[in-house]
């Protein structure tokens, strides 16, 4: 703040290269610390000077300059835009062609931070011709360079399908798929995140990713000791599974559901979220797939998530996934009801502290409309609010006329008494259901 920019600026043009490098490093560290300082760097017109003489300098200067650009570009889109406008992207791309891996790493890191903000900046990075060079960087032996290049590709392809298509056209998928087996945990994180950003946009991209034969090798990532590798692996599988039933079918056939279920069971916290959503997507596509989820013992971990987690969005995801599993046929609803999860869902629904989103997702309507397992419906009779009571009583009125044992059980467990206590407007659907139930029993019992 104390005029340090104007002091450092002329040092950049000094004769001695070491001074230039150290000045650049100092600028980079200043900009890294705070967004305002980065703005001051931009306003002080330092960037064009940095950029203009970059191609003739030695590698230390290039590294330091790339560090400055990265530090400025990471704070906000406007600063990144300023960097793009002063023509820094061409210089960074020239750095990417350098021999020294450190320079390449710094340059691709800077490009990654610039491309992260929005799709126009990513498009600018792609237009500068960075993508083929990044794909070459991925094939280099240095682990750190691979990491950074993978994260840059992931940042580029996350904004729009066209950008992802550009990355795919440069042949990135094959190399990324080979690197899934690499033992380095951070590299795996970035690779999995890059693949999931590519696959999330459209069916064709997801199919391309699948054709690179990542299954079943990706399932080993779900057993990794690093939490974020597991999370990104589950994210990748989720992005692939959500597009079409055929892709979900493929994942189920490869045993992906079992791996994801084990993964959910072993993690805690937000790491579980993509796995839960993946199960929800798979179950939502068709009833065969949701039966496959049930058969692979998917419901107990989902119930455990619902009970144990404290975060609202994870609970909402678990409730939604359970709803998707249970809504297809009575057999599915029975499987969900047997796991004794309906009272929990009801409690969440009625809890005033849970957010709106959670309450919406926890509506039992879908499951209740197909549920024929009466012992699980009974405890719900006692606490349900009117709009859910309607469905529960409706189910009873459909089941009781046909099943004599269930009728006896209904009376003995006090359900009939509870039904009498419900006050409903005459002519409403609820009243009709109550009448149907009352008609099943002789008069004395009803009174």
């Amino acid at each position, binding site marked *: 703040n104390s005029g340090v920019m104007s002091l450092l600026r002329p040092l950049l043009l000094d004769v001695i290269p070491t001074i230039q490098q150290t000045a650049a490093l100092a600028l980079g560290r200043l900009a890294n610390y705070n967004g305002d300082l980065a703005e001051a760097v931009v306003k002080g017109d330092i960037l064009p000077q940095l950029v203009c003489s970059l191609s003739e300098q030695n590698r230390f200067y290039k590294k330091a300059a790339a560090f400055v650009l990265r530090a400025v570009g990471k704070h906000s889109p406007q600063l990144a835009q300023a960097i793009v406008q002063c023509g820094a992207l061409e210089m960074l791309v020239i750095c990417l062609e350098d021999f020294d891996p450190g320079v390449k790493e710094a340059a691709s890191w800077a490009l990654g931070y610039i491309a992260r903000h929005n799709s126009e900046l990513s498009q600018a990075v792609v237009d500068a011709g960075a993508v083929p060079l990044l794909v070459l960087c991925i094939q280099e*032996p*240095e*682990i750190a360079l691979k990491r950074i290049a993978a994260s840059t590709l992931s940042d580029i392809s996350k904004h729009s399908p066209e950008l992802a298509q550009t990355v795919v056209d440069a042949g990135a998928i094959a190399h990324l798929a080979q690197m899934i*087996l*690499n*033992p380095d945990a951070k590299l795996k994180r970035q690779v999995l995140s890059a693949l999931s950003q590519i696959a999330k946009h459209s069916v064709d991209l997801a199919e391309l990713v699948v054709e690179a034969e990542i299954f*079943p*090798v990706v*399932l*080993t990532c*779900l*057993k*990794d*000791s690093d939490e974020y590798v597991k999370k990104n692996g589950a994210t990748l599988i989720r992005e692939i599974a959500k597009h079409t039933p055929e892709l979900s*079918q493929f994942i*189920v*056939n*490869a*045993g992906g*559901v*079992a*791996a994801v279920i*084990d993964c959910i069971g072993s993690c805690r916290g937000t790491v579980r979220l993509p796995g839960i959503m993946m199960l929800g997507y798979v179950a939502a596509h068709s009833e*065969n797939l949701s*039966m*496959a989820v049930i*058969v*692979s013992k998917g419901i107990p971990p989902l119930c455990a998530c619902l009970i144990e987690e404290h975060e609202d969005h994870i609970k909402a995801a678990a409730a939604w996934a359970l709803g998707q599993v249970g809504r297809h046929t009575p057999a599915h609803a029975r499987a969900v009801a047997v796991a004794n999860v309906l009272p929990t869902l009801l409690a969440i629904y009625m809890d005033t502290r849970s957010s709106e989103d959670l309450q919406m997702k926890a509506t039992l309507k879908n499951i209740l409309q197909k549920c024929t397992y009466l012992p699980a419906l009974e405890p719900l009779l006692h606490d349900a609010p009117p709009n859910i009571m309607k469905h529960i009583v409706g189910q009873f009125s459909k089941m009781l006329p046909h099943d004599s044992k269930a009728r006896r059980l209904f009376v003995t467990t006090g359900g009939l008494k509870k039904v009498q206590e419900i006050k409903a407007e005459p002519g409403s659907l609820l009243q009709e259901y109550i009448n149907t139930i009352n008609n099943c029993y002789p008069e004395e019992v009803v009174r």
Partner: protein
Amino acid sequence: GLREEYFRRNRAVDEDRKIEYKAAVKIQSWFRGCRVRAYLRYLNKMVIFIQKWWRGYRSRRYFSKLVETAYFIMKMNFYNEMAVRIQKRWRGYYVRKYIHNYYALKKYLEAISVNNEIVRSELQDYKEMKENEEKRKYLEKKEKEEKYQARKMHYLLSTEQIAGIYNSPFRKSPDPMELLLRKSKPLSHRQQQTKSPFDYELYDWPTCKRPPTFSTAQPLPPTGRQKPQGPFRDTTEVLRQRYKPLEPTLRVAASINSPPEKAREEMKREEWRNHIHDNEFLPFSSYHKNQKYDPSIHRSGKYGQETYGIKHFREVQPKKWVADK
């Protein structure tokens, strides 16, 4: 005398003549009336007879048509019933075999469970292998550190005269560190090779070289809908034909209540009003050629239609003809 008697009798006759004349007229008129009435009665009876015969004929024709349609409807109902039975069986079979094959689904789910077990066990093995590797890596690292330390502190080795730290005379056998010191070479500081970043040890570990292959026992049964055997038309074609959207002509597309329609209706009604009867006059005899004769039930013979009276009217005995002989 005679003249007065003649005159008196003529006058008496003349006085009664009018009365007798009127009486005669009355009688004659009554009789003519009776005759005419009788004739009219006779005519009436004849007309009733003709009308009765004609009406019976028309209604017999009508009734035979009625019977024919009723019979046809009965047959069609029967055919529909039978068709429903066939379709019921076919649809049940088709749905159970091709659309919702319960047993194939069950087999598929069992195969999925088996597959899941295999995947889970392989993943478990992989995890254990990885943990072992981690442990081994850790142990190796520790060992390497210890060896390095021993090389650095080589001078702590015990000599013949003086026992070193690790070789206390009160111990039964020397300390393991002592043994290590004996084995290790002294460290020379000159060549300190920096660990090159290229040889990352873990590339040699088995998890990299042999990733788990998840070889499933047998491939899962096909889950796509099998096509039924037989010359069935492609479903998309059938559906396209069935649900082809209507392409109405301009006239049909105009609403019923539009003015040209109303004018057309008006014209039609007026023309219908002006007709005496509804049978359209067909100009050429060729229009009537297709009308089949509806035989009355009386005329249908026991073994089919009686041809005499319809096809031929007089007996023909070709054997008696002379002309050919």
